[in-house]
């Protein structure tokens, strides 16, 4: 039943491609990868070598959890970022030498606040040396198309978020791009505005009002991807790689309530929540690296309070529920819920199977205890399961002054994560460590300390 529905909803892209070898790719990436060289010979792999083609006539959605390199992928494909290895081709010419015609719609809009709406839209045409009169006429026409007539002399800061993104669209479309890239274009907007803009985008696309031949949208919103895309690519992380790549066969306009729709959303959830298993449906499963090979687990950026909240909710649902439904109940985006699920799973409070989350015995005990006992359970689980927390605690116990500098652990984490991610890992570790009273952190000196030591100091130095 389920698989039948899925087959209606999706089809593997690879087989499709082999059926239509005649379509020439607009952008073709050959073994592109991204890594940052470290001084210590190691390098941090952000994206492992990946092949990818963008062909005319499709809306492609790139999905993935945070840290899977979605934005980096977009920037490499658009020529903004040079791959560390491999090559991107634009109509079979290396992208660094080709006169490519693409646009990007940015998450933060990236409008120039000192230029009026009209000047913002005109600026890309100015760069192309187009005469003032023609520039103005084309920009006005485009502002008309996106529903901004009458706003041309306003400044962006006078507009609402949705209007700003309309300006972003107008600026992107006024150069008549062959490929329109969008980097989470709706995630800075409220739900209704986003919905509205999405349907308008689909309308423009369906009516061929824009000469654009392909839309490539990066998103972390699964429903958005299933609503818009003709083809969905799901990325995994550590390092970024393609988990699965398939076509969506549901005809437009799509109905969120239809069974094919919800089944497809469910399937993608399942793929995303099981990072260690290659999706069965993906025909060309790229080799997936086992996360356990890595020294440190990636600490999910979740707060202990969030974990407790999730477990309590699960107990109310008899200890087991579908993750997709949970997110729906909470009105959470996947990026908000997944770290909490990951954290609960890492601590052994939760098991995830087939997209269903079920609470473990320990998890139930944790959720039902009072606060001090909760902290105790959390501490034991964290020290047992999380290498970084265990190491920090051991180092503190071993040293005579019971303090260790943050730098020490940052250096070790840097071997495995990017500098920014290492910092975030430390921040999360501090939140967890403080909650479980495993250790404390002196933010002014950037040092880890044992909780008692800090208390003694405070008692000695206070009133």
């Amino acid at each position, binding site marked *: 039943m389920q698989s039948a529905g899925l087959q209606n909803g999706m089809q593997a892209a690879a087989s499709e491609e082999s059926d239509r070898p005649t379509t020439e790719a607009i952008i073709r990436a050959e073994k592109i990868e991204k890594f940052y060289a470290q001084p210590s010979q190691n390098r941090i792999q952000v994206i492992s070598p990946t092949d990818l083609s963008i062909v005319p006539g499709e809306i492609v959605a790139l999905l993935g959890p945070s840290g899977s390199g979605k934005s980096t992928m977009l*920037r490499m494909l*658009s*020529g*903004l*970022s*040079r791959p560390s290895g491999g090559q991107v081709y634009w109509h079979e010419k290396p*992208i*660094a*030498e*080709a*006169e*490519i015609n*693409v*646009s*990007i719609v*940015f*998450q*933060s809009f*990236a409008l*120039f*606040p*000192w*230029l009026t709406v009209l000047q913002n839209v005109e*600026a*890309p045409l*100015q*760069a*192309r*040396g*187009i*005469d*003032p009169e023609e520039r103005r006429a084309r920009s006005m026409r485009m502002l008309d198309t996106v529903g901004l007539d009458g706003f041309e002399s306003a*400044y962006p*800061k*006078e507009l609402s978020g949705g209007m700003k993104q309309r300006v972003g669209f107008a*600026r992107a479309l006024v*150069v008549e791009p062959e490929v329109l*890239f969008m980097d989470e274009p709706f995630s800075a907007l409220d739900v209704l505005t986003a919905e509205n803009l999405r349907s308008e985008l689909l309308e423009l696309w369906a009516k061929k009002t824009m000469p654009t031949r392909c839309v490539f949208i990066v998103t972390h919103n699964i429903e958005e991807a299933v609503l818009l895309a003709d083809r969905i690519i799901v990325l995994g992380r550590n390092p970024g790689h393609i988990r699965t790549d398939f076509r969506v066969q549901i005809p437009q306009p799509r109905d969120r309530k239809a069974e094919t729709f919800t089944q497809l959303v469910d399937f993608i959830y399942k793929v995303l929540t099981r990072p260690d298993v290659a999706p069965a449906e993906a025909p060309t499963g790229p080799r997936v690296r086992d996360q356990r090979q890595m020294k440190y687990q990636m600490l999910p950026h979740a707060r202990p309070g969030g974990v407790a909240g999730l477990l309590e909710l699960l107990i109310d649902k008899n200890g087991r529920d579908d993750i997709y439904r949970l997110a729906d109940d909470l009105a959470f985006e996947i990026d908000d819920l997944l770290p909490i699920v990951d954290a609960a799973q890492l601590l052994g409070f939760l098991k995830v199977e087939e997209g269903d989350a079920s609470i473990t015995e320990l998890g139930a005990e944790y959720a039902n205890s009072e606060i001090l006992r909760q902290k105790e359970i959390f501490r034991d689980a964290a020290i047992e399961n999380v290498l970084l927390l265990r190491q920090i605690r051991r180092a503190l116990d071993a040293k005579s002054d019971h303090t260790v500098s943050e730098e020490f652990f940052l250096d070790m984490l840097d071997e495995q994560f990017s500098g920014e991610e290492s910092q975030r890992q430390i921040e999360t570790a501090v939140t967890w460590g403080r909650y479980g009273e495993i250790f404390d952190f002196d*933010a*002014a000196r950037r040092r880890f300390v044992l909780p008692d030591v800090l208390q003694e100091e405070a008692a000695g130095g206070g009133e």
Partner: protein
Amino acid sequence: MSLQRTLTRSLVMVRTWPVVIDMGVGLCALALFMAIVHLAAYWMGTAVPVSHVTENARSLPVYAFYSVMRIGIAYVLSLVFAIAYGYIAARNARAEAWMIAVLDILQSIPVLSFLPPVLLAMIALVPHRQLGIELGVILLIFTGQVWNLAFSFYSSMKAIPREMLEASRIYRYSGWQRFWQLEMPYAAIGLVWNSIISVANGWFALMACEMFQLKNRNFELPGLGSYIQNATYDGDMRALVSGIATIVLIVVATDQLIWRPLIAWSEKFKFEQVEAADHVSSPILALLQRSRLLGTLTGRLWTRIEEPVYRRLSRSRETRVVQPIDTDGDRRRPSILYWFAGITFALVITWGAVQCALMLRQVSWAELRMLFTGAAATFLRVNASLLLSALWTVPVGVAIGFSPKLARVVQPVAQVLASVPATAFFPILLIGLLKIGGGLGIGSIALMLLGTQWYILFNVIAGAMSIPSDLKEAASLYKFTSWQRWTTLILPGIFPYLITGMVTASGGAWNASVFAEYANVQNRTIQTNGLGAQIDTATADGNFPILLLATILVALMVVTMNRLVWRRLYRLSETRYKLEG
């Protein structure tokens, strides 16, 4: 009938106003033209190192004109240099670290230390015309103005949001378009505020740079600085007061006619997503914006220049291919030209270092000991003046900051006061000091105070104003004692601001030490033992080894203080005492 008439009358008013403004703008342009002609004639004339500056009040406008021109030209040079320097430092990963370190050091060198090399070089370059001496003085003022502008532009360039840069790349902006539509607007606000500080620094330097002794040769250029120095030397109180009054007048006029309109105008470059509630308003700006002549003239002229540039640039490779944003430095091999420039640069540096070392060998042990004691004395004075400033400005600043009504009145006044060069007030203080019979040892601390306290006062006021009112309410709700209020609320609240003010003030105090420890008053020279005085006498006697060593000592002390003390306190204030959650 009467309604009709009033209507037409008001129409006449509406119509004539812009015409009047247009005429005003036209007159200003004419005056500027005449000024340039006059200045050119003077500069191209034969060199007159000592022009006799009279203490006649009637010649004050002419002196004011010369001084303002010097500061103006120096400022324009600083702006151009700062933008070029900041741009290269921010965009060239290889040069960045070096250029910023150089800037850090240059910033810590007192203006007067630049005097001999700059002036001698300029006179050698243009030997027989007044232009040589004038250029030397202008470059000296330049060294007092340029560094903070360069820092400001550099840090603005580094702070441009990534997505804005990416947008400029993906839409294939040329460097020209990126500069005018992204980089300059983004840096504009920082540049305006730093320009105010720079011009104030320019006045500070001008006081000493128009009249000085170099290698026992006298230089005296017509200007306000010479006028005031002469008046001080002769003890002519009336001339002194009228000279200072002229400076204050010019400073206030600059504030009203240039800075306020500029600040109001630069608000449009604020990088904000939502429009802010309060605005700076400027009637002058409103007037200028109403002038039709100015608007259409500059608008047309600009399009005339701009359009062909864009058309030509659109054919270049830069605007046809998307430039990657992460041009990895190690990917492109450095060109031969780069190597050549690097090697030449290194050679010049080595040669300079060797020359300096040879020069320093002439310094005797006795002189060395004298320099070190002088350094210690000046170090103590600088920090004493900082401490004293903090002691009085903190309570006063907090009191002002906590009362919005008072703050609205005091802040603009304090801003103008801070722009009035402390060097202009030195003479009055000095004469007063001599009357009481005090020496310059303690007196110089008072003189430094004059230059430093304002920076701290502003920042403390701003800090006190930024303490959220709910925290203040909590403090009164829980009946904090006044000791508790100060230690738990006020001091931590103003800490980051206090540190910012002290950092700026400490730079100012070092610079002021050169002027504060040595002076010609009422027909005699008074001085006290200190590094500043040693720089002064070394310049006058042309004792370059001492000058060099003293300068190195100052730079060394300022840079190490910055690294060891101020930067740490700054970081502490950013991590622990930041009020934004």
